[in-house]
């Protein structure tokens, strides 16, 4: 694959990614369940990792 076709492929891929983000991923429910909720869970476990359970 030459440089020109690689550049075209990259730009096309990027255009499709932007379209998909705009159409499908940058939506309230997707952001909440797909980004914020996993981040919150990860953060909760991360912060709570050093806590020793009380007997």
């Amino acid at each position, binding site marked *: 694959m030459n440089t020109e*076709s690689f550049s*075209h492929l990259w*730009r*096309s891929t*990027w*255009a*499709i990614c932007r*379209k998909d983000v*705009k*159409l499908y991923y940058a939506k309230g429910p997707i952001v909440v369940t797909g980004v914020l909720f996993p981040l919150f869970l990860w953060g909760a476990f991360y912060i709570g990792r050093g806590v020793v359970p009380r007997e």
Partner: protein
Amino acid sequence: MSAIEAVNLHKRFGSVSAVNGVSFKVKEGEIFGFLGPNGAGKTTTIRILTGILKPDSGEARIMGYDVHKDPVKARMLTGVVPEEANPYPDLSAWDNLMLVGYLYGLSKHTASERAARLLKLLDLYEVRERKARSLSKGMRQKLLVAMALIGEPKVLFLDEPTSGLDVLSARKIRSLILDLKNNGVTILLTTHNVEEAGELCDRISIINGGQIVETGSPDDLMIKSGLYTYISVKFDRQVDPEDAGQFFKDWEHRVQGSRILVICKESAEPIVRVVEYAKARSLSIIDIHTSPPNLEDVFVKIIGG
């Protein structure tokens, strides 16, 4: 080199043979029409030529590039207005056009310049920020045409581009098609509108049952069909039926009062004879008109057998 070349294309869907040995060539800058009844194989042929479907056998080439062996090069030269497709409904008209522009490898500047020009040309500029889902069917169809043109393709496939459009929009699309032809774009057009095909196309192929049954210019098809032209002449006074019968004996004809109807396959000679007849008998021609067979008659005759 032909702009579009189909060589012995075959495609089956289960037991149904959708395309059965279709071969044709389209010259650069030509408008080539594909006419046929529903299910004749028009859309399947276009899908093969645009690389959407792979044929069971045969070859499809665009500007010399094999559509299936060299798909990117072939597609970069091609624009398609499919029969059943929609722009992304949740993207605006502008974003739809820009997306296709980027897929054709255009820079942001070039894509936005062409998008603005095409939207203005097709009277969509005012609604460019509206989502495609909120556009009317005609507007969406025009947007599809704009999306096919943004890459400035050398070969354009139009699958029923004016279906569902109002008269003015259809006329605009037809005039755009002729402008594109004048700019050297090769166009393959399928339509159910036989008169439209006759008006736009340099050559027409009539396809039925997956096979091309006739190819030629609209005029050639009319001649090949063997249908008749009617010449109706009205003189300033009554005509002697016996005398007229003798004069026009080479053609089927009717004489009624001051009117003669001549039925012929080729109209030039009978018209000359009508003038000679009037001159020899000092008759004045009040009215003369010819009714050649129209393309719809030809289509029905060829498809109907």
